[in-house]
């Protein structure tokens, strides 16, 4: 199953845009499994360095995770101030506290202009962006969170511990020095 649509300028990209390995995660900020995957992705980024670009797309399961949408919207609001990844990180690092007060606290801690952040959080386009991500996840065959795509193809072999790194090493040996 392939990623639909492919990664584009509309996505948030971390790392070398021309990297050999493209890792896309569909995730939910309140999903405990995504919380467990967070340090695993960080480690992968460290191990692969310039050979990896990482993209996060929102797939909030709002009926079971009531704070997932506000958390996702907060990262999009942070993106408007060029601090998407800072917000992404601080939210996953504090996943157990996603009430509005905590989210605003994180916004302050990553150095956002709070007045602008507050205004932006009211904007419909942020939620629409999150929903566009979600819809693309449906078409891409996302069936759980997190779901990963490596170089455009759905990755089904388990992401725990070093399994993604081992897969990349076996499939793209040139990417691993």
């Amino acid at each position, binding site marked *: 199953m392939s990623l639909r649509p492919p990664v584009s300028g509309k996505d948030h990209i971390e790392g070398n845009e021309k990297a050999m390995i493209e890792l896309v995660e569909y995730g939910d900020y309140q*999903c*405990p499994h995504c919380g467990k995957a967070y340090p695993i992705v960080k480690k992968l980024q460290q191990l692969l360095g310039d050979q990896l670009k990482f993209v996060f797309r929102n797939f909030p*399961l709002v*009926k079971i995770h009531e704070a997932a949408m506000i958390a996702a919207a907060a990262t999009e609001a942070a993106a408007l101030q060029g601090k998407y990844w800072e917000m992404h990180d601080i939210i996953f690092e504090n996943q157990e506290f996603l009430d509005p007060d905590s989210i605003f606290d994180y916004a302050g801690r990553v150095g956002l202009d709070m007045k602008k952040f507050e205004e932006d959080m009211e904007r419909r386009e942020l939620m629409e962006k999150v929903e566009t991500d979600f819809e693309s996840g*449906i*078409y*891409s*065959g996302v*069936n*759980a969170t997190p779901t990963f795509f490596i170089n455009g193809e759905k990755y089904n072999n388990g992401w725990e511990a070093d399994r993604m790194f081992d897969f990349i090493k076996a499939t793209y040996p040139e990417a691993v020095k």
Partner: protein
Amino acid sequence: MLSNGTKAPDFSLFATPDQRISLEEFRGKRVILAFYPADWSPVCGDQMALYNEMLKYFHKHNAELVGISVDGKWCHMAFSQERKLHFPLLADFEPKGAVANLYQVYDEKIGECRRALYVLDEEGIIRWSYLSPVGMNPGADGIMDALEEMNSVQSNLSV
């Protein structure tokens, strides 16, 4: 599985402890029949919870979703409340698996429905189906593709 173009067999099953739903009631709407093995599979990756999040996108295509398993109506009620599901779960409970059998997706060895999907059009004709490998949540990309394909056939006919 029943093939595309055949009429979906009608049925009437309990959706709540005191209410039955029959397939005929959906005439004029598209119907997604999602047969699944059992209520209470693990959270987050659960197929029904996932589809619950996607209802809006199914509704955009005039499609209603129905889940079917051999669990009883009280079990369905508890499961549905706990997961806050906004679509009916039908109890293929007595005679056990009869409807799954009609749709050729009953696993007699374990006494559960297989994980299988049917998409029916407004007239109750089967337009698409899919049998998922054991233990694999099929997601919804196949359903969405089938619904869009049906849209494009319709718009070609109306030209």
